[in-house]
């Protein structure tokens, strides 16, 4: 009798939206189609929501808002991204806020990161408290968006997480097997699970693997204050903004990793935890979220049922 062993999952990596992405398929034959679909979706995301390409919808909205209040009809994808960002703002009482674009510019993150890191003149650091997610208005039926003057949007916290969730579901609907979608570290899975679940590494800021866990359907995300950092005339800044101060969040944690049913929720939780600093563990526990936190001094903190390392 011939025993057909299941094939090992196959992986494809590619660059898009300024980061490294990967698709893992339990049925290797499905991988080329999956990657093609993922590339098309990420191209659409970039065109809708990139803060750094002037022809994106988001850039055009931000540019218009510099001059005055904006009323605009947005594309279906941008409406979906904005709706998600608004729900996240409500879910976190504004700790994760899509209107921190002006603050990011204020602390020097006004261009693609490679350009920010290589510019000769250090920027000043001007904290710019958020105008507030609840001043952004979206009518989902008509897709009409209104923004007050001076509000700049940034969907970095939720955009690729939402696409990871969508892609994982979509691939499973249209292709066979199971998929792991990794968009720059925001991970969503759907469909058939490999035996024992998907093994996922938690990578520290130095590239070292802190722990390998298994996802049995959970999404995972990590937010870091140790990456996407740059020098300003007033010290080192990073890209996670505390909307209350309009400045880079206090780097109490080097990074926070969280598991949740969706990548949007996992990313929301990790971003909020970074913003909350010392209050993060209690907040995570109160929300029933499992997380692995890496302190500035290198200490690991596990909360909410995050598994201990076992040999």
């Amino acid at each position, binding site marked *: 009798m011939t025993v057909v062993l299941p094939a090992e999952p196959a992986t494809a990596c590619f660059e898009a939206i300024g980061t490294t992405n990967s698709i893992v398929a339990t049925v290797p034959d499905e991988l080329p189609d999956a990657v093609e679909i993922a590339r098309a979706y990420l191209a*659409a995301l970039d065109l809708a929501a990139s803060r750094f390409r002037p022809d994106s919808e988001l850039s055009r909205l931000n540019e218009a808002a510099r001059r005055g209040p904006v009323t605009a009809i947005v594309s279906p994808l941008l409406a979906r991204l904005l709706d998600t960002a608004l729900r996240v703002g409500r879910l976190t009482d504004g700790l994760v806020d899509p209107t921190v674009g002006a603050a990011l510019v204020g602390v020097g993150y006004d261009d693609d990161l490679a350009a920010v890191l290589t510019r000769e003149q250090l920027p000043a650091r001007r904290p710019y408290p958020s105008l507030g997610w609840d001043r952004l208005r979206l009518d989902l039926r008509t897709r009409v968006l209104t923004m007050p003057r001076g509000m700049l949007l940034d969907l970095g916290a939720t955009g690729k997480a939402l696409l990871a969730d*969508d892609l994982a579901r979509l691939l499973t609907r249209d292709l066979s097997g199971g998929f792991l979608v990794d968009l720059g570290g*925001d991970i969503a899975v759907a469909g058939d699970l490999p035996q024992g679940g998907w093994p996922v590494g938690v990578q520290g800021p130095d590239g070292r693997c802190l722990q390998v866990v298994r996802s049995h359907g959970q999404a995972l995300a990590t937010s870091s204050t140790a990456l996407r950092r740059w020098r300003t005339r007033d010290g080192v800044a990073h890209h996670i903004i505390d909307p209350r101060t309009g400045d880079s969040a206090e780097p109490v944690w080097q990074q926070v990793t969280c598991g949740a049913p969706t990548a949007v929720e996992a990313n929301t939780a990790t971003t909020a935890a970074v913003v909350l600093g010392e209050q993060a563990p209690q907040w995570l526990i109160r929300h029933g979220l499992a997380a692995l936190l890496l302190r500035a001094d290198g200490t690991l903190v596990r909360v909410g049922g995050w598994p201990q390392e076992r040999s």
Partner: protein
Amino acid sequence: MPTTRSWISRATWTTLTAAGLVTAGLTGYLSAAAGATHTGSPAPAESTTQAASTTSTDSGDRGPSGFHQSAPVTSAGTNTGAPAASTRGS
């Protein structure tokens, strides 16, 4: 082969997807950047905008303040070989 798109070619399907003509499934929203942005154009007169739309496609068990709940991930131990992927800050 996929069943729901077996009647069209892969290239056609991808093109439709990129144009926003294939829905993302569970959410019911079109999921690509179709349509033009008319920055600065006036809102329709009958439009009633609302702050932070309450429309939601959420379902399932929720925690004390809105997050869906799931079992935590499990440990994979230390002798598991290379992981399928890594979560990392970006």
